């Protein structure tokens, strides 16, 4: 047996994984270097064993308790994050539905005001003082009649005027007193805000249809 073979084998023997065979024993009996290595390896194994026994952890239960507490806190945090995600998703969905509905509804309201052949012309938007909008009984012939339940205009909000023919029902909705027997249409300037909703109406004297 060569020294190289012996050194590989003696490490395993010293570690207690195998027992020295005859070949190794014979080599150790004749080779002083390998015998010294053998002794050193055995001594090292004993030292390492002592070291292993000396390093037994002392406070396992305490560490475990600390980690379990962290585990519980972590689970709680994860649940909160999941809950927040669910709520955010729900909020986004609701907002999306509202936004889609608004986008869908807006053209409809515009259609009501600008639809048909009755629109004669529309003026460029500009600001109108809120004080100009009065109830029907105070507005007079040339004044703007405030549409009931219309929200007050925002500061700086501009209004466009849409001229169109309004029938009896539309005039009533806009707060104008109408003779129940009258069935014709009347030309009116509808003041439309930036939100697309009517804010006020001004009647002209041109009326069509029957009285």
């Amino acid at each position, binding site marked *: 047996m060569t020294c190289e073979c012996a050194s590989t084998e003696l490490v395993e023997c010293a570690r207690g994984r195998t027992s020295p065979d005859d070949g190794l024993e014979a080599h150790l009996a004749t080779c002083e270097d390998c015998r010294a290595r053998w002794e050193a390896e055995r*001594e*090292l194994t004993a030292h390492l064993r002592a070291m292993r*026994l*000396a*390093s037994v952890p002392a406070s396992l239960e305490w*560490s*475990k308790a600390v*980690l379990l507490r962290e585990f519980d806190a972590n689970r709680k945090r*994860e649940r909160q994050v999941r809950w927040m995600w669910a709520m955010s998703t729900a909020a986004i969905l609701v907002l999306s539905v509202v936004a889609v509905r608004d986008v869908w509804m807006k053209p409809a309201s515009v259609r009501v005001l600008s639809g048909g052949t009755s629109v004669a012309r529309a003026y460029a938007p500009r600001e109108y003082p809120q004080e100009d909008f009065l109830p029907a009984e105070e507005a007079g012939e040339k004044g703007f009649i405030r549409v009931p339940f219309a929200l007050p205009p925002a500061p700086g909000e501009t209004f466009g005027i849409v001229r169109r023919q309004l029938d009896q029902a539309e005039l009533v909705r806009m707060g104008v007193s109408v003779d129940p027997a009258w069935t014709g249409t009347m030309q009116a300037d509808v003041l439309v805000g930036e939100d697309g909703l009517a804010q006020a109406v001004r009647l002209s004297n041109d009326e069509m249809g029957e009285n």
Partner: protein
Amino acid sequence: MQRSDEELYSLMKKGDREAFGELYERRGPALRRYALHMSGSPSAAEEVAHEVFVQLMRANTNFDDKRGSLEGWMYGVARNLVRVIRRKGPVEEPVDQAVHHDILGDLINAESLAALHTALRELPVLYRDAVVLCDLEEKSYEESARVMGCPVGTVRSRLHRARGLLAAKLKRQLAANEMAVR
């Protein structure tokens, strides 16, 4: 029948704290010993073992059972943490702690144990890894190879080389201690 580490991990991820506790009891002490021998500091070892489990319980743990065992992953994390701690600066001396627990005092005195600690700390990391896993943790070459992520033959050769270096360092250390006493 004992559940595997990976099964316990899977249960733990679903919120089973008992599974987490069992996993800690199974792997915690060995990880702490490993970190102690690799870092040479009991407090660093405690910190490392704790951090391994903290990382394990995080939602974005990068453990993938298709790429290796959970045990290997844990040792890998511990090894990296020890490296980070050692890079920060010298760690405290472990001698007092080791001497305190020395139950083979009659056979091996505290001095030689301290010398062994010092010699082990001076070994290159790859060699130290081999000694700690194979000799101190008593893992087989196959288990150590899985943990170290290298072939079995490499583990064996590293261990043999490491033991040779360790024996020589230990001998020098003990001789120096003896000289100092005289």
